[in-house]
């Protein structure tokens, strides 16, 4: 058995540079480089570079949002199972949509979206809350104050809600990928429990408008 020394998560000397996994960057010919890019290339030829993580690929099918979702779904570091669930989900969604597409009359065909990646991204967009609540202490009591959320926080909340919804509210016999594909398709058409949860958060924020000036940032 070959033992692999895990080097990526050890602390690197700041002297080391980040790796560049995308192929397009290396295909630009010499003439079209801007001066900054030329400088960067010269720097890279001199300095040492960190090892790339296992999750980044130079493949054209690499999707950072999907990788983040896979990582969030992973339990006990078992990425194979998490990735397997996500691929089965995408396949399931595509199958349902393609079946509907082939059986639909010509007029309706243009409206049916068959691309599982588009459905996934759109569903996640529909689940992202616009405004969030924070617990702020004022005068001994804690108030739920509406605050703006960063992009990362919104994405995180959407994914978290999706995963907890699919883990908790499903029938004992339904498999994860089946439930996940149902929820994603529902969120794509703005129905379903996750979108409902987002709307409830918005309503709470709206009802607590009065406390908005407790926020000092």
């Amino acid at each position, binding site marked *: 058995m070959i033992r692999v020394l895990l080097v990526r998560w050890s602390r690197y000397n700041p002297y080391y540079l980040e790796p560049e996994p995308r192929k397009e960057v290396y295909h630009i010919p010499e003439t079209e480089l801007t001066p900054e890019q030329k400088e960067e290339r010269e720097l890279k030829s001199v300095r040492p570079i960190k090892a790339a993580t296992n999750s980044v690929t130079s*493949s*054209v*099918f690499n999707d950072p949002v999907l990788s983040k979702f896979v990582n969030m779904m992973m339990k006990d570091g078992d990425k194979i199972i998490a990735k397997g669930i996500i*691929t*089965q989900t*995408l*396949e399931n969604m*595509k*199958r349902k949509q*393609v*079946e509907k*597409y*082939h*059986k639909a009359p010509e007029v309706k065909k243009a409206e049916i979206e*068959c*691309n*599982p*990646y588009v459905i996934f991204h759109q569903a996640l967009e529909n689940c992202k809350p616009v405004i969030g609540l924070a617990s702020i202490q004022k005068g001994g009591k804690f108030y739920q104050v509406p605050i703006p959320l960063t992009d990362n926080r919104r994405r995180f909340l959407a994914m978290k809600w999706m995963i907890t919804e699919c883990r908790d509210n499903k029938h004992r016999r339904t498999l994860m990928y089946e439930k996940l594909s149902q929820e994603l398709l529902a969120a794509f058409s703005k129905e379903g429990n996750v979108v409902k949860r987002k709307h409830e958060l918005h309503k709470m924020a709206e009802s607590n408008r009065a406390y908005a000036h407790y926020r000092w940032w």
Partner: protein
Amino acid sequence: AFENRLAFRAQVRPLHGSGCGQQQEAVGMETRPETFSIFRTQENNPACQSEQHLGQYYTVPPSHFHTVFPHGLPPRYQQQVKTFNEGCVMVRQPALELISHLKRADYSKPTLRYLLYGVKGSGKTMSLCHAVHYFSKQGWLVLHIPDAHLWVKNCKELLPSSYHASRFDQPIQASNWLRNFRTTNEHFLSKIKLRQRYVWTKRESTEEGRPLGELVDMGVSHVKSSSDVVGAVLKELRLQAWGTEGGFRMAVAVGVNGLWGRTTLKKEEKSPVAPEELTLVHNLRKMINNDWCGGAVIATLSQTGSLYAPSSAYLPQELLGEEGFDSMDPFVPVPVSLYSEKEFESCYLYYLDRHWLQHPHSQTEEGKKELIFLSNRNPSVLERLCAFL
């Protein structure tokens, strides 16, 4: 002889490089211009297909689909048929070779046995189903046993056989198989008459001269004696194969390596059951022996369901074992290889046409190169990759 049976519709065959881009547009704009698609062919009859159609997909008409293939198709292919709303099979070299041998064989001599072998996922079961479609079109009687592995593992009920003291019966598997056999061969069941009297219990017996359909119905309804019914059916077919009203037979079996080797079944005393002690396996082995004439036996090796065999084994010697190889010997080996470049192109275009490849990058040249690299042109690996892309 195939040159006489060329398809009369001339196919438009542009070069691969410049043709591909135009074809995709053409297929997208028009509804179904069959003569313009490089990967489809109009020739739906396997008997008339020749090397000209290599790499092209032909459609099995939906009306025949459920009668010809009640069982026997790989499960992922069945899902694909349901999704795409049509059943398309690719015309490949091993299947064509097999069909050409079958056309020229002499059926008054003892049966020839053909063995399809190849790496895991290279298309053996699909070639077998292609051959089965050819047989049903020719009007032969098809004895399609989808997987002998289903009979040697995961059996819930093992009854001691009533006919022979030391053997074991499997009622569920036998009755399932009889039901599917009845669906495939409806029209033969009334024509064939029994030549012997079979006694099932003290009160029930089937007389000489009754049609085979009655025997099969009895087997399906009386689940306990279904394994013996299967044995009787196989024996009758063997005896009557040659000569009666041009009723040719053939036997088709997949996962033949399950008939030899070990089983996972155990008797009540926890001692393992050898395959000879199962009635179904015993009768099937008699069928595969070439002591009858008037038909052909086409077998496939399958590593997927096989027990106690390493996953890299695909050659007949390794999977059949000593005993199996000696009983199958002599046979005609038919190797099934991975997709060639042309077949890969054809498969890729078919998926594009059916709106299966949805990822925008998978429709570019880069994505295609990546698919070739990741799947190594293995049909089943490619299918699994394209499923989520």
